[in-house]
């Protein structure tokens, strides 16, 4: 994970776009919560710099 995050920084995408969480099979609510939070954080970061030039994707 640390290696991949560093790579994302070097590429110019930013390490913040990758997250890892521990979720057990009984954590349905927590999973939904994590996904909602992650969506919020990515909304703040804005679209991936790779996507900006591909509006139809």
């Amino acid at each position: 994970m640390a290696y991949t995050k560093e790579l994302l920084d070097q590429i110019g995408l930013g390490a913040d776009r990758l997250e890892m969480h521990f979720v057990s099979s009984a954590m349905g609510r927590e999973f939904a919560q994590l996904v909602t939070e992650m969506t919020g954080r990515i909304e703040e970061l804005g679209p991936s710099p790779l996507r900006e030039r591909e509006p139809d994707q």
Partner: protein
Amino acid sequence: MSDFEPQIVAFCCHYCAYAAADLAGSLRVQYPPNVKVVRLPCTGKLDTMHVLKAFEKGADGVMVAG
């Protein structure tokens, strides 16, 4: 920026987070529809290459859960 809908790929372990996502559905817990879940036999199977491919294909964020 308000119409920006993030594309997120979630790599999930079949036995942990994938089951949790399933449970979230059974419990009728709402979560954003822009998350695409990719089921892995185990998150140990995840490779840097899979994460890079997700970004290369246009993902805005990648989540690993297991």
